[in-house]
């Protein structure tokens, strides 16, 4: 008997899908083990939602194999639906139902699972029990959608962009909730275009761009793989700095201009910062802003594609 941690619950091989003449998914392989939180991340339009919807049996692949909990959509759809929890991007639940009515409706679709009222408490919506869905805030609606995914006591939970459009506080609330599911030993596959969300929640991630997986591993491994430990962001006033000279400073991997500031990827802060200050003094420029931070998955994305994952 393999231990639960080694059991593969989702296996995707050579997945391809195109819509008209757009290749949405261009050959994707994924493996998700029981008990882990796996993140599919990338910018909008990278093919994450198409990939996850094929895994959820809501879309069909042009080519490739998908095995979920050892079963196949073609043969075992009814059995699979009982064992999966699904949250879709952009679902608007029935406006006129109350929170509890919505959960009772979804609960009635599953053969077994916790009581609707228990799931409602789990997502901390008991104060809103009799409130109509229409009156809920964005974060409350997202928590209700999450609760609808939990009423069947799923073995595998698919969350498509669970925090998109939420304010930072609602997002943190949802992260705490997902943390609780992880502690309860559930397997989660989530998509997100927020790199910090993947770093916070996922044990392993696959970064997608243009329908392909361009990198995979733990967030730590991916950040280490670009050979960059730190990022320095700075800006000056007056004339533009000579960036060519700056990129020749010791330990500097990359220099680019973005969002009105200069972003430098460096290996060692204690060498790069003094060298940068000396160089700017030599060019006769005064700093208006200087920040340093550890490298993130966003920097991995930038290093791999030369673009930011988000336009904002």
């Amino acid at each position: 008997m393999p231990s639960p941690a080694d059991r593969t619950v989702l296996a995707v091989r050579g997945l391809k899908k195109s819509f008209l003449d757009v290749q949405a998914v261009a050959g994707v392989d994924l493996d998700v083990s029981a008990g882990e939180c796996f993140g599919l991340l990338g910018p909008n339009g990278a093919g994450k939602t198409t990939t996850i919807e094929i895994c959820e049996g809501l879309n069909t692949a042009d080519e490739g194999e998908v095995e979920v909990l050892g079963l196949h959509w073609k043969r075992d759809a009814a059995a699979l639906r009982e064992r999966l929890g699904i949250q879709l991007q952009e679902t608007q639940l029935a406006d006129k139902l109350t929170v509890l009515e919505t959960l009772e409706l979804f609960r009635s679709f599953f053969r077994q699972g916790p009581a609707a009222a228990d799931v409602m408490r789990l997502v901390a919506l008991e104060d809103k029990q009799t409130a109509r869905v229409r009156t809920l805030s964005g974060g409350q609606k997202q928590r209700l959608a999450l609760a609808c995914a939990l009423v069947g006591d799923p073995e595998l939970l698919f969350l498509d962009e669970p925090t998109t459009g939420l304010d930072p506080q609602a997002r943190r609330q949802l992260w705490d909730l997902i943390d609780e599911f992880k502690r309860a030993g559930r397997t989660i596959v989530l998509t997100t275009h927020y790199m910090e969300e993947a770093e916070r929640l996922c044990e392993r991630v696959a970064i997608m761009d243009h329908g392909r997986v361009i990198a995979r591993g733990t967030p730590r491994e991916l950040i280490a793989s670009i050979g960059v430990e730190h990022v320095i962001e700075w800006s000056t006033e007056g004339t533009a700095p000579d960036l060519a000279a700056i990129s020749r400073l010791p330990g500097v991997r990359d220099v680019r201009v973005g969002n009105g500031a200069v972003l430098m990827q460096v290996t060692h802060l204690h060498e790069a910062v003094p060298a940068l200050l000396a160089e700017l003094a030599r060019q006769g420029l005064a700093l208006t802003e200087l920040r340093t931070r550890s490298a993130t998955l966003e920097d991995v994305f930038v290093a791999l594609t030369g673009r930011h994952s988000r336009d904002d």
Partner: protein
Amino acid sequence: MTERRWRTSALAQLTLLRYREFVREPEALFWALVFPVILTTGLGIAFRNQPDQIEHVAAVTAPLASALTGDPLLAVQTMTPEAADQALRRGAVVLVVASAPDGGVSYRYDDTNPDARVARTRVDRVVQRAAGRVDPVPVTDDRIREAGSRYIDFLVPGLVGMGIMGNAIWGLGFAIVDARRRHLMKRIVATPMRPRDYLLSFLIWRLLLLVFEVTIPIGFGVFVFGVPMRGSLLEFTLLCILGSLSFSALGLLIASRARTIEAVSGIMNLVMMPMWILSGVFFSAQRFPDAVQPFIRALPLTALNDALRANMLQAVGLTGLVPEVVVLGLYVVGCFGLAMRLFRWQ
């Protein structure tokens, strides 16, 4: 714990969803239940069968006017020729009586207007009798006014049929397309729910609403206007159910692929508009030319209206309504089958 079992069945919960979405939408309640009563009342008053109606006519000379005032069914006004022509154009009078140069009388009127033709006959009778004409054959009038042959008797079954059509097509069309547009349908399909239950919940809810949709206008017609219910009530109920099923199937077909409310509204109007006009709701379908009668007969609302009228007014049994029942049955089977093949769940 039968109550609990009932509460946790998917079909019951989906039907409850229909119920809740309906009663929490006051406009839907109004259009489905109150509007038919208002419409029946309005039309019943407008088209109530009156004993002979008084016709308004204009006379251009005083002697002509005084000759005509003897008839109680004519309202005569004396006017200048210009004022009389204007009154005719406005519809204030339907006939202008003037002296002709040859010493006779001239009538100015629109011969396609039935009221004007009646007015002409009456005026002419008065004018000829005043000049000394004696009718050679004595006549007596034996007047009958029987419930069942009045306009309101014709109208109520037609309004019931139209209500069954509108409620079924609008009810299904909007609810399905709205759920699809909001991705709610896709979300529900992502659960183990059986699609059959989803569609069945619409039919159950339609049949529950049908009780009100039919009994309100029928009760109103029977108790306020004395509309007769001469046929078998059981057969009447079966005809209503069959009608509702056929329009539900049609509504399902209309909503099977549309993604937006605008698109489905357009198709619904396109489908219903010909039936409002052709299927004998407000006036008999027989008035249309023979060439289009086969097409009119094939419309489900024509079949339903004819069957309801035959049941209510002439007490015709189902055995005498085979063509109508077959037409409705074909719509149930054909539209439902086609809708199942075309239906877009996402």
